């Protein structure tokens, strides 16, 4: 399945809208400025997609994953280096002296943050494209990028569309990534939806 540069630009614009919504939600939760980087898109082999995967393959990450299906299916992930995740939980939920309580607080807080941020990205995309997305319950996992990739290998097609954006919250010295993986078996439907969106936004206006 081929995706033209124009379609890729349109999809990137849609992702920008979603990422903007996610940044707004994070900003509302933290009341601190969030700096979002421009998302990039790639189509390719899941294992080889990002140079960053190779560079940071052993870095320990806190991840929240929100699988989705519908017109298009795949998985969205919110990824933090573990230290960033800790700062975020402290900022939002405070600290508990009991390590078990702290672990549970960390898991529930990050899962809810992931739920809100990833729904913001995917929901914006779905609303603009006028297609439904059905989510599975989000889940939290501590893993390396390599572990994440390997855990997805069995249920992910060999070729996927991959979108990733990085954000920083300077106040907490915190960085994170939002990553979307679309199954390319549905890529045709996604491209058609993007085409419809492009035509609807470029159609000439008729005045009486």
């Amino acid at each position, binding site marked *: 399945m081929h995706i033209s540069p124009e379609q890729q630009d349109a999809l990137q614009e849609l992702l920008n809208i979603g990422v903007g919504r996610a940044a707004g939600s994070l900003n509302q939760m933290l009341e601190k400025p969030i700096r979002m980087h421009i998302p990039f898109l790639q189509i390719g082999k899941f294992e080889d997609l990002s140079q960053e995967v190779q560079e940071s393959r052993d870095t320990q990450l806190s991840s929240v994953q929100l699988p989705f299906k519908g017109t298009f299916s795949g998985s969205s992930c919110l990824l933090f280096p573990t230290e960033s995740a800790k700062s975020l939980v402290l900022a939002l939920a405070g600290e508990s002296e009991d390590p078990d309580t702290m672990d549970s607080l960390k898991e529930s*807080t990050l899962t*809810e943050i992931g739920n809100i941020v990833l*729904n913001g990205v995917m*929901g914006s995309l*779905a609303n603009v494209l006028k297609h439904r*997305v059905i989510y599975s*319950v989000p889940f939290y996992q501590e893993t390396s990028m390599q572990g994440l990739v390997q855990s997805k290998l069995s249920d992910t097609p060999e070729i996927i569309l991959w979108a990733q954006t990085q954000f920083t919250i300077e106040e907490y010295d915190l960085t994170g990534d939002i990553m979307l993986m679309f199954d390319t078996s549905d890529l045709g439907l996604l491209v058609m939806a993007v085409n419809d969106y492009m035509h609807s936004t470029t159609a000439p206006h008729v005045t009486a």
Partner: protein
Amino acid sequence: MLSEILQKLGHEMDPAMNGQDSLENIAFNPPECMLLDNLMLIMDGLQTLQAPQARNIKLPIIMLTADIEEWLKTRCLERSATTFLNKPVKLPHLQEA
């Protein structure tokens, strides 16, 4: 976390892990208001919304979900949700609802 905040504000809370649990809680101890998420295991919010009505239990239901899709909002309001709010929600907005 929300449950704790609302408790501190003087509300009595009866948290449930999923829609099925919440229906058991409602049958045992009917609340004045139900706060319902959509993404839950076993029985999601949309499925849960219809259950109180089917059992002739009338209570205000506030949907509070991270899902911002328009179709979900429409469907929830059609299925007897009193209010539909998106997370993150400001406490005054929730109290107003």
